[in-house]
């Protein structure tokens, strides 16, 4: 699969990824559609444009790293890995099936292109800090991107890691927050509010940028611009909608890990085809 810096083309890829992800989750009878859809544009933009990596040589030492800290949207990652050539497209049909490599949370030992076995929340950011440190020790220009959920930021380990990332001036580290404002059963605000998130991240020594997490042009500009501020890691607050852009899923807590019926799947695919974006 070719890289593209064309926002419209990225949007088209993301639309296909969304369709495949919803289908996969429906067929598997399990999965996390809400968060998969909110993060799709971020993941697609990273894989299809921003990151320097090679599916033919997945262990290339100087590759950029992408760590999916919100491991429960493994489905969205698998779809992207397959589309970009890291894993065979046929493997997607095994998602969550007995003995499949495609577990509900990614496993680097079985799935090419996966950098960390995530699942429990609050693990990806410390791992990303460690990787960014290794790059600094190697005097390498390779970059580290870690995608975290906003609810996930309630885990204290993230803030431990942010202090370290700032202390070590890891300016090739980028934390992207999928700021869909919903967690499992309620809004983040109702549960344990993060605001003022921008100020908190800034206070922890990060350069903070806010983007529309569904706008590929904006995502491209920001994610390619690392280091955004020399000597500081970057904290991208990507404003998204859980379940985007499916009308009945969007911004609806119920779809955190609800499985669509066959009818709902048809409806969702029709909406995607009709051009909702």
């Amino acid at each position: 699969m070719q890289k593209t810096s064309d926002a419209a083309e990225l949007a088209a890829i993301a639309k296909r990824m969304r369709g495949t992800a919803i289908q996969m989750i429906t067929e598997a009878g399990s999965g996390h559609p809400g968060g998969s859809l909110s993060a799709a544009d971020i993941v697609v933009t990273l894989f299809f444009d921003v990151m320097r990596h090679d599916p033919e040589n997945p262990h290339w030492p100087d590759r950029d790293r992408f760590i999916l800290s919100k491991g429960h949207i493994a489905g969205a990652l698998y779809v992207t890995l397959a589309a970009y050539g890291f894993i065979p497209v046929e493997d997607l049909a095994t998602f969550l099936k007995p003995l499949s490599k495609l577990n509900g949370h990614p496993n680097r030992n079985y799935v090419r292109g996966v950098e960390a076995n995530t699942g429990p929340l609050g693990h990806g950011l410390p791992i990303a800090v460690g990787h960014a440190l290794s790059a600094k020790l190697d005097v390498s220009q390779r970059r580290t991107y870690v995608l975290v959920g906003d609810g996930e930021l309630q885990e204290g380990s993230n803030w431990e890691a942010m202090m370290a990332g700032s202390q070590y001036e890891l300016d090739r580290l980028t934390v992207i927050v999928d700021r869909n404002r919903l967690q499992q059963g309620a809004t983040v605000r109702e549960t344990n509010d993060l605001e003022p998130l921008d100020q908190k991240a800034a206070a922890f020594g990060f350069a903070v940028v806010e983007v529309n997490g569904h706008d590929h042009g904006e995502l491209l500009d920001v994610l390619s611009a690392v280091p955004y501020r020399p000597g500081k890691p970057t904290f991208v607050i990507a404003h998204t909608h859980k379940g985007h852009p499916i009308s009945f899923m969007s911004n609806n807590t119920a779809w955190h890990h609800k499985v669509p019926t066959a009818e709902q799947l048809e409806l969702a695919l029709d909406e995607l085809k009709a051009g909702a974006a």
Partner: protein
Amino acid sequence: MTDIRVKQGGTTPLEPSAASRSARQSIADRPRYDCRNAYVETLAELAHENHRIVGVVNDSVGSSKLDAFKRAFPDRLINVGIAEQDMVGVATGLANGGRIAFVSAASCFLTARALEQIKADVAYSNRNVKLCGMSPGMAYGELGPTHHSIEDIAWLRAIDNMTIVVPADPIETAAAMRWAAAVEGPVFIRVSRMSVPEVYPEDYAFVPGRAVTLRDGDDVTLISNGTVLWRTLVAAEQLADDGISARVISMPTVKPLDTEAVVRAARETRGIVTAEEATVGGALGGAVAETVVQNHPTKMRILGVPEFAPTGSAGFLLDRYGMSPEGIAAAARKLIT
């Protein structure tokens, strides 16, 4: 000279020279060493030999005795501050970038605070991270049960893809570290603070998963490791005075366990006593018991720490829980009579 031969089934007996040496001078009278010194010396040697080696600490530079390492390799000692979850995650990320991280932190905090990171980031992810549990067991005796690390072995033993090594002296500590640095994958090494005499010859070659028969015997078997091992050797001397022939097996690797050596001991002697600076539930004693009960049931006595311990020095507490040489000998006598 020490005679190291590989016996049938794989244990490496140090007989007869260890026995003849102990006949001349009890192991209890030998000089004592803090294994942390061997640890830092070996880590510095490894770092000189291999640029991929880095240290990762949770502010534990002093307590891990890493000041000299920090001076020699200022960029390669990563101090994340008092943040154990981050520490293990960072070590995992360093491994992702090709580094070999030796995480040095008080075992109580390393294993309890970062247990999920140890499970998911290191073991399940099969990352090349070496977890070094400093001052484990009862080392912080007077500081109380928050700082005692008696559970670490049981916790980590429950995790798949984790090798657990509990060295008994400075020679074994250094040997285990050299092995850990050379092998790809997760390893947990306990690094003792309580001083111990040398129980191994200088040319001792640590073999992972391999028990070492330090003293042969056919009445009863004593299985131990870490700071308690030398105490079992003295116990065996005392038992010999009573005409009881005790086999002493050093079990530096708790996981994977040398089950053959355990089954042979169960078969060839009349009972097994385990003794360790750890909880009586699920550590070395538990591992031996699991093997015994499924292969050749025999009488057993598991010595260890059964509770949140009261205040006292490490040595005092080990004695209190029956792990003085006299206590171990008494347990063995009782078991077979």
